[in-house]
């Protein structure tokens, strides 16, 4: 029979390939695997940082795996639970890191690896540390200090000021930001004030110390006035037609940048890289102003070394190198990820950095300012899940769901998730 013959041939070939493809040659090189999401350490076609390390460390080969945010963190959890399969180095995003704090035995403790933790602020170190502070599971890479990116061309069309100082002066507070939004709305056809309510909400809460959990680790989100106020203000803005209602990291959101569907966006440092990569044609149309409220943090990651790995020492060394100030500065200049070491902020390389793409905005001074004012935020095991729940709930308000209903169902979801998580 013809086709079963073909199938058999394919399978025979397949088996032969499995047999010869499984083992790489053992010539004394150590291969270190690193699992990342998004843009960490390299742009898709650029592994300059890895090449540099390999050149300086003979016998080390670095292999990177990149997957999407959700899959990356889910797979990491599965691999930790199973006790095998994790990469030598795994990246964890700041919103997710709290979910891994309880599993300190599954990671290398950087407290034992002679790392100088004073190079970071307490807040940054604390987030990746066990409650007693005895264990540090990850080294900080970048930090998502907040600013507000805005489209100068659209501001001009709306008759708003366009220079960054004037624009910063428009919105010392988030209430004023929403007020300016009311002026803007309707002046430019098909352009909204901001991309998504969830990002305004994140920005507002960036000024608060206790949001979802208190310092004792209790879930306080339901009765926390600052959370409800942030929600109400965001809902106001949505009701006033200011939101383009683009779910974050969706294809719609991506096209939103390219098509200029919104005039402002809550803009952590890494967002600069995102905008540049995603909408290269908008070069020169963006600028960066101060964030309302003056401070905040969104995003940033930690480099961890799962203890199940076989090359712990080499991995720890690479992790330290990747998160060292020199490398962080290089990344800042190429993709916008802002260095987490406060010592670097005053270096001329950072402080004098201006972004051509963003009309020459002095990114090197805007971000440190926002970070120096930022409170040390308390996070709990399900902070990441809670943040996602709010983003979804606000998105549903944008689609017309009654805000009270959306709030109630968000609370249900949060309590269910936090009850066990």
């Amino acid at each position, binding site marked *: 029979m013809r086709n079963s013959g073909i199938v058999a041939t394919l399978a025979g070939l397949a088996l032969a390939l499995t047999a010869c493809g499984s083992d790489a040659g053992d010539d004394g090189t150590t291969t270190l695997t690193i699992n990342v999401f998004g843009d960490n350490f390299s742009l898709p076609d650029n592994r300059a940082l890895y090449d540099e390390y390999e050149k300086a460390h003979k016998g080390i080969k670095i292999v990177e795996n990149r997957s999407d945010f*959700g*899959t990356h963190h889910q797979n990491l959890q599965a691999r*930790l639970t199973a006790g095998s399969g994790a990469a030598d180095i795994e990246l964890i995003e700041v919103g997710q890191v709290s979910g891994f704090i309880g599993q300190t035995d599954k990671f290398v403790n950087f407290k034992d690896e002679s790392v100088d933790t004073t190079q970071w602020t307490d807040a940054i170190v604390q987030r990746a540390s066990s409650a007693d502070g005895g264990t540090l599971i990850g080294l900080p890479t970048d930090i998502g200090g907040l600013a507000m990116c805005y489209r100068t061309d659209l501001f001009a069309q709306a008759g708003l000021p366009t220079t960054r100082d004037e624009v910063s002066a428009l919105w010392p507070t988030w209430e004023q930001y929403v007020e300016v939004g009311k002026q803007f709305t309707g002046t430019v056809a098909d352009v909204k004030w901001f991309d998504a309510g969830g990002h305004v909400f994140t920005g507002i809460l960036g000024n608060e110390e206790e949001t979802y959990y208190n310092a004792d680790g209790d879930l306080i989100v339901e009765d926390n006035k600052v959370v409800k106020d942030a929600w109400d203000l965001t809902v106001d803005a949505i009701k006033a037609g200011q939101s383009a209602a683009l779910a*974050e990291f969706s294809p719609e959101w991506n096209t939103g940048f390219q*098509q200029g569907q919104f005039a402002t966006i809550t803009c952590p440092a890494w967002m600069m890289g995102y905008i540049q990569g995603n909408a290269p044609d908008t070069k020169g149309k963006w600028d960066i102003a101060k964030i309302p409220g003056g401070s905040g943090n969104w995003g940033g990651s930690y480099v961890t070394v799962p203890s199940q790995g076989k090359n712990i020492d080499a991995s720890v060394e690479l992790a330290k190198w990747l998160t060292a100030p020199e490398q962080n500065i290089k990344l800042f200049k190429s993709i916008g990820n802002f260095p987490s070491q406060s010592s670097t902020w005053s270096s001329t390389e950072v402080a004098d950095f201006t972004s051509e793409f963003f009309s020459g905005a002095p990114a090197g001074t805007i971000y440190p300012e926002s970070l120096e004012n930022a409170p040390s935020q308390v996070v709990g095991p399900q902070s990441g899940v809670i943040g996602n729940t709010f983003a979804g709930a606000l998105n549903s308000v944008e*689609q017309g769901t009654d805000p009270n209903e959306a709030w109630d169902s968000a609370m249900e979801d949060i309590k269910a998730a936090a009850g*066990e*998580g």
Partner: protein
Amino acid sequence: MTAQLQDRGAPVDPDRRPAVSRRQAWRSRLYRWDLKGSPYLYIFPFFGLFAVFGLFPLVYTAVISTTAWSPRKPGSEDVSVGLDNYGKLLADDNFHNALINTFGIGIVSTVPQLLLALGIAHLLNYKLRGRLFLRMGVLVPYITSVAAVALIFNQIFARDFGLLNWFLQPFVENPIDWRAEKWASWLAVSAMVTWHWTGYNALIYLAAMQTIPYELYESASIDGASRWQQFWHITIPSLRPTIIFTVIVSTIGALQLFAEPFLFDTTRNNNGGPQREFQTVVLYLYQQFWTNGRYGYGAAIAWTLFLVTVVIALVNFLLVRRIRSADD
């Protein structure tokens, strides 16, 4: 074979009788063993591997479902909560919502899909030129992977610059947000499922139609029955077993619908739309399990769904038996 032939041809030597009979006894025992034992040997690879990779994980999942296990809380895997997870699940609005979505999307995708398939099969059953081409044409979606289908349909169903909303522009005031409105999202997910499976089902119906004797149609048309009457009174009744088969398969497939809604939620937080508009049971399970790290609860959802599936399959089965016996 040669040994057997020699054996059979050899003259019977009376002196060797005891030996032969011992040998015969051995052979007949072997034969009996072959007869009784070998079937088990043949089904063993299936049941052996299934026991290891299917049954064992399922039982293990049942054990997990009685714990408060969350990997985010060390030691929680040993905390037994009895049937609490199941109790919570029955009172969980999101689970109810997921069930409704699952059944809703199931109906919206299965019914039109099977009706369309019937219609296409009927058309393909005519004497046509380029038969192979036509059949291959309707089957193209079947060989396309769900991942590819979803990536393509994600663009077609995009709210702001999607192809479909462009076509609909003259008819609707505001562009439809295919992910944020319940009916729209059900339609979009169902469209993916329908696109993928209609051709396959059409071919199954076509095969069954071809077994209907042509004489039935001939005599009907002599009696003056119209084409529609012929379809209704001859084709459909003859296809009944096949239709039942496809309904059962599609129902079970619909209960386990996952890939399409998973990929359609481009935020990848597995919420199935901002207000869980198209979150199916398996997607909810996946979210609780993976995204929220609730292993115990997720395992309880898994088992509940399994039981629901079994119940529905049993109902299907009984209905079919009833229809069959009514036929006789």
